């Protein structure tokens, strides 16, 4: 698997970057994630596993006011999880500019 630094590069499309991030998290930590756009109460699907299965929504983290991640495991509980969350949020923030 390529590293998170290689995934979250400015040249990569947002959807692809988040899909690869999700794959990396599942591969490294066994946690399935799905990224969502947040509008009001709506968390709209943006990217995640495309295998006909749902990500069990046990944890929801607001990365930015308009972006969230749903996961079936606690991302902040993994090694350097908080750092990873901040890094994704920063990437989304830069991408939104």
């Amino acid at each position, binding site marked *: 698997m390529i590293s998170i630094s290689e995934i979250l590069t400015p040249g990569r499309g947002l959807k692809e970057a988040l899909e690869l991030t999700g794959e990396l998290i599942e591969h490294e930590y066994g946690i399935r994630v799905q990224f969502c756009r947040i509008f*009001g109460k709506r968390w*709209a*699907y943006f990217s995640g596993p495309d295998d006909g299965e*749902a990500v069990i929504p046990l944890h929801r983290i607001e990365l930015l006011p308009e972006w969230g991640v749903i996961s079936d495991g606690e991302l902040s509980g993994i090694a350097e999880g908080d750092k990873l969350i901040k890094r994704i949020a920063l990437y989304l923030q830069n991408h939104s500019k």
Partner: protein
Amino acid sequence: MTTAVKDFVTNTIKRDEIDRYLIGGKDFIDDTLIHAQIAAGARPEKSRVRGIIAKALSIQRLDPEETAALLNVEDEELWEEMTRAAGDIKRKVYDNRIVTFAPLYCSNLCVNNCLYCGFRVDNIHERRRTLTLDEVRKEAEMVCKIGHKRLIMVYGEHPSSGADYIADTIEAVYDVKAPVRNGIAQIRRANINAAPMSVVDLKKLWKAGIGTYQVFQETYHHKRYSEVHPSGVKADYQWRLYALHRALDAGIDDVAIGALFGLYDWRFEVMGMVYHAIDLEDRFGIGPHTISFPRLNPAEGMDLNNKSPYMVSDADFRKLVIVLRLSIPYSGMIITARESAGMRRKIIPLGCTQTDASTRIGIGAYSDAAEEQESDRQQFMLGDTRSLDDVVREFAGMGLITSFCTAGYRCGRTGDKIMKLLKSGVEGKFCKLNAVLTYKEWIDDFASDKTREAAEAIIQKELEQIKADPFYKNKKLLTTFDDYLGRIINGERDLYI
């Protein structure tokens, strides 16, 4: 007509936002082809019909020729098989639950002149009003106190109720917190039934947190459409036909279709809805989230509603619901309180997934605690005005669990994601858990003693099924579910999976 209204009528339609979807200058409804397909489907072979039923049972959307064949079935035995399949499909996709909602009418000012509608501009008997945001909040509070979590907000097409107003009303209802037995109740999903808009305006609704965007074509037949929509923005068939395409392009990923049965031949309308679903699927990978199939009924000052040559009999209504259920098996199906209690009892087992109760459709009618219907402030007359408590109890008697779930769109189960989950049967598994969680909330916060007794029995049955279903065990969901249910029993609210 004021200058503002004239400008609104002149400037609303953006021709380029229609033309971009046309193929060879034509829309996706070919009236001649549909009539030919219905005619060609006559006297279908039993074996062919059974093959089509099997396809629907595998949760595949039917092709128009297959729907046409079902519409032509005359054999009673086959209708019985189709009836059973309709119920089976519903349970496979949505489990044993029925979702309830409340309509909230925000305005009845309208620039259109639809011959069947109480809001039509020429109806001088209608008392016109657009609710202020405070009034909208008050209406939402009353709805919360009944126990509803889900709204369908309805607006006339008028500059006083444009996209900015609609977005403000969505935000207003989400802000409402109503005190109930065990804490606070809130609206958790605001769906919108409003006129077609431009992509720019639709983005405003998206940003405000719209649930599903619902636009009914009313009739898919071009000529008939022109006859019953003689003036106003709504006179443009294609502006309306592509309303949901624009919504999806604007980012709104849950959209809903509908036809007003009784305006034209019911078989044609069913075919039109199938074509609508196909075009949405082909272009966006997202079919209709729900399908509505209201029937014409009397409205103040509307002669058409008593004279239409296409009025749908109860027997044909039943058939069209069955064929719709089989044709677009993944979509939710909504039957409303337009229909009588008796009719709803007959139709719901044919595959319906949503309905309303404690319904008031007068502008401001929840706050006024209006007991009687008032035709001069309603779009049409209701056939069933029973309370939510009565309806929940009846459903329990029918073995159905009433769900107040709004989890999917708050968990990223939207758009093409939810389409796949519905087709694979996975969403139905979530429906079951969330139905129990929200049902328990509702029982503790709102149910009468009589209803509580019936409802608790349903919960026990559902719990037994959940414990026995390997899906929940394999996905390790039972621990979370048990934890959430326990916390709800202890007074916590709005826990969902």
